[in-house]
């Protein structure tokens, strides 16, 4: 843990964007904790309950994160990141209320996108990512951990080898094999997302 914990308020928005892109856990956690109350109040005041507030917030949070990754968030157009997150949650909730069968839908598998409707290309990208996510869930725990350490937590092989108790070369080799397994799994998943 050589990276120190960042405080949200001390960060410029460029730094914040970089830290979000790198999945800095302290920053993501603070961002999560500091914006929920507003979203919760909005949902509860608009025919929603606690569970729905949580679901819509988590969806919005993921959408915010994806947009930051894809450079779709620029500070001048959208205000600060907390406001941006709230806006996404709000649109998602309104969209949910507008949908005809909203009484029967759960939020778990719905994916309403913020703002512009998606191009075909983006749509197929989302489908692929969802398939990959399903496949990650089917990996063994060890593979999940290795891939998480490398890609999500952005640890070096040196750090990873210490954590999982392997030497660096074996950790690298194991991660490679896990990744190949993931690719195979992705290809054989019965494609429930395709229409």
């Amino acid at each position: 843990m050589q990276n120190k914990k960042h405080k949200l308020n001390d960060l410029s928005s460029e730094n914040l964007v970089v830290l979000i892109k790198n999945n800095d856990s302290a920053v993501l956690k603070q961002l999560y904790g500091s914006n929920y109350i507003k979203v919760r109040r909005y949902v509860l005041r608009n025919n929603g309950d606690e569970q729905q507030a949580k679901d819509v917030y988590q969806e919005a949070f993921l959408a915010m994160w994806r947009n930051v990754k894809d450079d779709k968030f620029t500070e001048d157009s959208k205000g600060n990141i907390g406001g941006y997150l709230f806006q996404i949650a709000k649109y998602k909730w309104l969209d949910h209320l507008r949908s005809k069968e909203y009484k029967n839908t759960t939020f778990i598998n719905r994916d309403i996108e913020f703002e512009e409707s998606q191009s075909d290309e983006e749509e197929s990208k989302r489908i692929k990512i969802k398939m990959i996510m399903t496949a990650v869930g089917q990996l063994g725990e060890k593979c999940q951990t290795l891939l998480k350490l490398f890609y999500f937590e952005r640890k070096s092989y040196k750090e990873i080898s210490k954590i999982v108790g392997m030497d660096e070369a074996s950790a690298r080799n194991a991660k490679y094999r896990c990744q190949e397994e993931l690719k195979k799994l992705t290809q054989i998943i019965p494609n429930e997302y395709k229409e």
Partner: protein
Amino acid sequence: MNTKNEYADNSGMLHQIDQYLLGHLEGEELRSFEERLEHDTDFRKMVAEQRLLIGGIEEFHLKKQLGHYHSQMELENVNKKPLTIWLAIAASIVILIGVSFWAVSDTESAAQKVFAKNFQPDPGLPTTMGTTSEYEFYSGMVSYKRKEYSDAIAHWEPLYSANPKNDTLIYFLGVAYLAKGDHEQAERYLKVAKTHEESMFAEEAIYYLALTQLKENKVQEAKNTLENSSFPSSIGLLDQIKSLR
């Protein structure tokens, strides 16, 4: 072995693609990578696929992480205590102290006896890998549970200097020092831990701080430490030392 050959052929390029996508390529390496990206269609496809794969892995884990953030957030909100309980306890403690003033006994050994009778290290936290990013902390916890306290401290002290406000870390450093027999250091950490009133370990910190002070024969300080606690163990401990001086 087949997999090894495959690995040797592929891993170099894959590694470079990873480095590029994680933003680690610089200078000449980056330049030539981008040039290839521009001209080599197959290569471009490979990079695009790897980008998706990484994106999927990241989103899977972030989604899981959000569940943890949420429950932690809820936990932190629950931990705030109503003031009336504090006031009631404080009042009863004042009476206890008044009574204890009259009691006289052989404090030197008695205080340490109370310590020996009561001290048991905190059982520690579950060390499930994969649910938290703080592996260094949890590998210290593994040592701690094996009663290798110096080892645990060696893991935790560097973390402490990087995160001086982490209440969990401060608390366990205190308990580890106490278990190891270094009361001065234990007292130092536990005093800091006690100031984190919002911490889920705040009450335990008070309890162990009082035990530390008993071990050092500071009976009155231990009483003062326990004074306002509503924690059952602390009330019990105060009960045991009220006749000491």
